[in-house]
């Protein structure tokens, strides 16, 4: 790139000669920071196990990346924060009760198979954390679906297991779900704050929203994917989610499960979503539609993970077909 003239010490490189201060590291660390509120809520509701599980998965992700890169003779990129982010996201996608080998195996799998074998950051096709969750769900289906009551405030778990709101909704219906919380407003409140069963980081919609707004304010993510994703889910839930048509409760579906975590933090993963904003809207709608197909008519109570992974496959295609608006394009056609 840049070359230096030994005599006069001048550096020669291609324009431009100034750049803004943004770097991959700064972006990745900011996303890590944006997940902090959700992490704090996870610790609040699920106790020290939240620290244990996410800590293990972060550690495993960072060490795997470091030694993999050393092994193939490349400089280690762990300082760019992306391995930490993968580990953190994977940790937040796990139930509090998982045994120690699950976060470790998950991180090892995603960093080696999903990230490094595809060529490292920038080349992976699938969102690493979600691939990890899918892999773990298939390998250890039992351990991955044991949910604890989130009652323990910063303390250890009382080992009462329960079902996630979406699980209850699917198996036993809305009245039962409302009854579980007390009344309807308690239910919404529980979902906003995170006082429900579920993966560590997905339960508190409010905490996730705070982090997401921070990322939007810094323009690290834009509204296109989250809004189209959430909007599609709400629309489907309203139209098809109740008795007959146009009778469903969109809020339950929007606030529960991994939707906020998925829509704000994983569907927006740069590498695995389309780059063109218009294409991102299509991507978001696709994610939302598939999520609801699975939730309403599929075999699982939750559909965000498969929806995003499926849409990841389409991202390259969307980028090829949806181009940004070329300056001067309209008039060219007229001529």
């Amino acid at each position: 790139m840049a070359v230096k003239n030994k005599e006069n010490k001048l550096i020669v490189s291609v324009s431009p000669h100034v750049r803004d201060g943004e770097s991959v590291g700064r972006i990745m660390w900011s996303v890590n920071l944006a997940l902090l509120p959700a992490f704090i809520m996870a610790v609040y509701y699920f106790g020290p196990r939240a620290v244990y599980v996410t800590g293990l998965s972060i550690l495993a992700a960072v060490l795997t990346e470091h030694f993999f890169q050393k092994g193939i003779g490349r400089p280690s990129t762990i300082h760019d924060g992306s391995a930490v982010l993968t580990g953190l996201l994977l940790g937040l996608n796990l139930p509090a009760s998982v045994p120690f080998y699950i976060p470790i195996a998950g991180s090892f799998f995603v960093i080696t198979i999903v990230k490094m074998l595809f060529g490292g950051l920038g080349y992976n096709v699938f969102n690493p954390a979600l691939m990890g969750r899918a892999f773990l769900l298939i390998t250890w289906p039992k351990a991955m679906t044991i949910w604890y009551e989130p009652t323990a405030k910063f303390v250890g778990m009382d080992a009462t297991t329960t079902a996630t709101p979406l699980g209850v909704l699917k198996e036993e219906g809305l009245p039962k779900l409302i009854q579980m919380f007390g009344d309807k407003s308690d239910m919404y409140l529980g979902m906003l704050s995170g006082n429900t069963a579920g993966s560590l980081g997905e339960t508190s919609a409010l905490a996730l929203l705070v982090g997401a707004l921070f990322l939007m304010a810094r323009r690290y993510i834009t509204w296109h994917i989250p809004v189209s994703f959430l909007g599609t889910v709400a629309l489907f839930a309203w139209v098809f989610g109740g008795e007959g048509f146009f009778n469903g409760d969109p809020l339950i579906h929007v606030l529960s499960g991994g939707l906020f975590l998925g829509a704000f933090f994983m569907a927006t993963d740069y590498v695995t979503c389309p780059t063109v904003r218009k294409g991102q809207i299509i991507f978001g709608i696709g994610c939302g539609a598939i999520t609801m197909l699975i939730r309403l008519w599929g075999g699982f109570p939750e559909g965000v993970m498969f929806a995003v992974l499926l849409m990841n496959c389409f991202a390259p295609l969307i980028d090829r077909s949806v181009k940004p608006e070329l300056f001067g394009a309209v008039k060219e056609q007229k001529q």
Partner: protein
Amino acid sequence: MSRTETFERGIHPQYHKELTAERSTVQAALPKRVLIPLSQHIGAPAAAIVAIGDEVRTGQLIGESAGFVSSPVHSSVSGKVIAIADFPLSSGKQGPCIVIESDGQDTYSDFQEHPDYMNLDPEKIKEIVKNAGIVGLGGAAFPTGVKLSPPKEKLIDAIIINGAECEPYLTADHRLMVEKPAEIVEGLKLLMKTLGVSEGYIGIEENKPDAIAAMEKAVSGQPIEVHALEVKYPQGAEKMLIKAIKDREVPARGLPMDVGIVVQNVGTALAVYEAVRYGKPLIERVVTITGDGIKEPGNMMVRVGTLISDVISQCGGLKEGAVKVIAGGPMMGFAQWTLDVPVVKGTSGILVMSSDEYVSSESYSPCIRCGRCIDVCPMGLNPSMLSILSEKEFFEQTGEYNLFDCFECGSCAYVCPSKRPMVQFMRLAKSQSKP
């Protein structure tokens, strides 16, 4: 005037204009020797019409225009031709130059003056402009005479004078507008007359209120509007300027004249006036010498052909820690390998960056597909995709993504968190594929 106009997308780099914005233009010392390249413009190089040993005067024709898109060159000093050979140029390439040793007298050749310049026939004005070697002074150096001779089917209805000066650091156009507003307006009126148009515009970025005020005053009572433009790069690119002022979109791969507009830089307008009124060919221009790496930043009237090293020493020389010397601005200028290259008609600035200002671009990483480059590309391209295709050498696919609409403004590289050399990728792909 009260509107602030602009185009879509673009970037907001730090401008750093305060280094030189208040500094009046000073006359640079007469160079002892000038290297005058035969090709300082887009198009065919001029053909030398002097031989080694010939005595020449300031302003004398030494290279003849060789084709429709070409431009003549003139001696910028009086003295003797001592060499005609290839020398390194500020574009990074080598090119034929006529080397003239100054006799220190600065004896001018006889210029044909036209005190009644406004009554000249348009054809005559065109001829004078062409023979004076006037080219676009904004950087691209497109021969002005060619722009004044559009094909018959292109009806031109407006001329825009480009005073945006959107490149950070540069203040050459700014100073001209403050110091010579009346002359610029006369130049514009001559251009309007030549093309038979009744609408004239002057577009200036809002960060130059004194230039806006000066130009407003100079145009009062004439069919010319001064427009304040948002401070945004690349506001001064022709297509963006036309979009901002006339809300017309030049078709992709097209030219301003396709939407009935001709754009000229403020320096060019001044050169037109001086050529038509006083018969003076283009032999000097205002250059901004700036950056944290130069001892005494300022704006200077410099003879074409003066070595950059000569200009730099007149500005106190390089500071300790100067790491990069750029001909032009930081967004589109050329980094110099040696300082013994001449100032040419298109040299708007000499920027000396210190190690503090310089952001290393030595290593870059893969595209993380963040989309930031797409959000800023003024041409509405997908620079991410183009850079990846170029990187993987899938050159034949770049046409599908409108590679040749890229004008290398560098906005995409400016925002790229992976520090990718985007402009290099674009140039590589262009050199490897057909438009």
